[in-house]
């Protein structure tokens, strides 16, 4: 499989008055065509920053420090904003932002927002455009009347569907989904997940699926990328992390043990003591060392490299390196 997105040694820091927050600190990974990469981690570990960085619009006061992002073989970081807007964003890569319900302009009808986006990118008369939009609305399970509605007239689940339709209708290759179901109830969440799966196979999409919910990730992600404090802790295939092999990194391991299971009664769930570190001044050595139950001396001084343990399964932990 070809890699459609390649991130190399990316660093993106937020420059605040208190210092630089190292939100993305030397991260490299690949996304293959037709693959879903799950991005998980606790809140504040840099998941969302990763998403907006790939879209080449880091939230202020964020700045790229170094690294490259290849989308379809093209490094997008040095590209002028205008070209990114014209030929990358929404053309090749689209994003469903966290809190999709707030991502629709409240004073425009759904149709108008979608039309506007379409006209920015495609030469198309209104009739064709409306047809295309209603096609996509139907695809996400919404009637085409929704076009005439204002966002406040729709429920959370409907808005989420609109946002997904808007992310897809220009046929991008990559879609970043940032917590697309967090605010939704379980049943609606399951509906949306099903929808995403269908769309993915219909359009041959590649997803980056960001969530904090490991259980949800198990249902969607082909590969899982576990982030901790701005770094990748572990990256590996679904079958190995959720399967018999299990997680390699103590952090992933603990996260999995902390996830309550519906069909298995456990007496004691485990948890990770302490809180994620301050990214202005992260701990020396392995960033997880103050909370790790398997910590060794080396972990406190040297930063573990991300190394491949088995095919496609990399981890940054001294225990696994030996």
């Amino acid at each position, binding site marked *: 499989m070809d890699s459609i997105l390649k991130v190399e040694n990316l660093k993106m820091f937020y420059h605040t008055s208190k210092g630089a927050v190292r939100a993305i600190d030397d991260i490299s990974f690949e996304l293959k065509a037709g693959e879903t990469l799950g991005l998980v981690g606790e809140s504040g570990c840099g998941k969302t920053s990763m998403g907006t960085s790939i879209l080449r619009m880091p939230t202020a006061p964020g700045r790229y420090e170094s690294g490259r992002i290849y989308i379809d073989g093209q490094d997008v970081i040095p590209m002028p904003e205008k070209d990114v807007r014209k030929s990358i964003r929404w053309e090749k890569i689209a994003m469903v932002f966290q809190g999709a319900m707030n991502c629709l302009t409240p004073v425009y009808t759904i149709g108008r927002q979608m039309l506007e986006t379409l006209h920015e990118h495609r030469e198309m008369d209104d009739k064709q455009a409306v047809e295309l939009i209603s096609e996509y609305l139907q695809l996400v399970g919404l009637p085409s009347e929704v076009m005439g509605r204002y966002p406040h007239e729709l429920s959370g689940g409907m808005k989420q569907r609109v946002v997904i339709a808007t992310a897809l209708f220009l046929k991008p290759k990559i879609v970043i989904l940032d917590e697309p179901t967090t605010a939704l*109830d*379980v049943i609606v969440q399951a509906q949306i997940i099903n929808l995403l799966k269908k769309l993915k196979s219909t359009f041959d999409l590649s997803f980056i699926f960001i969530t904090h919910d490991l259980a949800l990730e198990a*249902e969607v*992600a082909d590969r899982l990328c576990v982030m901790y404090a701005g770094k990748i802790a572990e990256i590996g295939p679904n*079958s190995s992390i959720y399967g018999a092999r299990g997680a390699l990194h103590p952090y992933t391991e603990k996260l999995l043990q*902390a996830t309550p299971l*519906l069909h298995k009664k456990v007496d*004691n769930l485990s*948890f990770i003591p302490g809180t994620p570190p301050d990214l202005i001044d992260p701990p020396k050595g392995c960033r997880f060392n103050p909370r790790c139950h398997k910590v060794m001396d080396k972990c406190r001084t040297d930063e573990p490299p991300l190394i491949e343990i088995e095919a496609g399964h990399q981890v940054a932990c001294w225990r696994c390196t030996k």
Partner: protein
Amino acid sequence: MSEIKGDEILLRVEKIKKHFMPHLTLAQSLAAGGKKRVVKAVDGISFDIKRGEIFGLIGESGSGKTTMGKLVMKLITPTEGRMFFEGEDVTFLEKMASKTYRTKVQMIFQDPYASMNPRFKIRDVLTEPLIIHKIKGSRDERDAMIAKALIEVKMTPPAEYMARYPHMLSGGQRQRVATARTLILNPKMLVADEPVSMIDLSTRAEILHMMKEVQRDMNLTYLYITHDLSTARYFTDRIAVMYLGRIVEMGKADDIIDNPLHPYTRALIDAVPEPQTGKVDIVKELPISGEIPSPANIPVGCRFHTRCPYAKPECSSLPEPELEDVGGGHLHACRRYKEI
């Protein structure tokens, strides 16, 4: 009294209803076309909670579970129905009696940070209940009570935390303090409304664990309100599943999850993702479609029939099914449970 623990009914709720008449502003009532719709948030609910039990109330948003919690907390008064606590009718209480009730029933909120005044130090947060309930004592005596509560929730050493502000604590610590605050008054029952949903997964278990310990230590009873079936199974003894202001199924937690009878419960269970491999390429069978209707516009007949995959015409024409016991304390409200 405490000898018959396990069987003694601590809280009994009988056919409780809470209907809201929305108080609309001019613009809103105009927007609604002048019609005022009654929102039937809780629409006839009965259940018992035994002493020492952890009772889970499960439902989607809009199911009325939070309203039910507030009713038990007596933050709002019911439109209809009765409520008994320790055998005593507490449906309507005078000011003084409701204050006494508050010492017995306490609440833990979803967002521990929001549940504490950001300008109060932890000591002030914890002194608050003592002041409100006029529990006299010198500063040292009060500090001792606070320290005891903090130790109870494993915030040691307590003195270290007392002078801090809530924003200086982690999410888990805040929820511990929030729990400590309720414990100071030696309550009999705690209402916990989504106590861990705002807490990161990594520390969620820590809080649930702590809550269980406190329950054992102090012989507490919990009403645990959540939308999350997985933690409910882990945490509770019994579960009641709510849909649009009604209980559709109730029983032991394991029974409900391993052997659900009501189609809605089944749908809920099916929808829950689990961390197992091999599910990526499978599109889940979801028996129900659509979204929960508005509590201002409840379907006639079985209120679930609009989304039920097994609905027959009788489901909408016949009156709403009542809860039916199939033995072992497992109740459900579906006429056709045998057929499905």
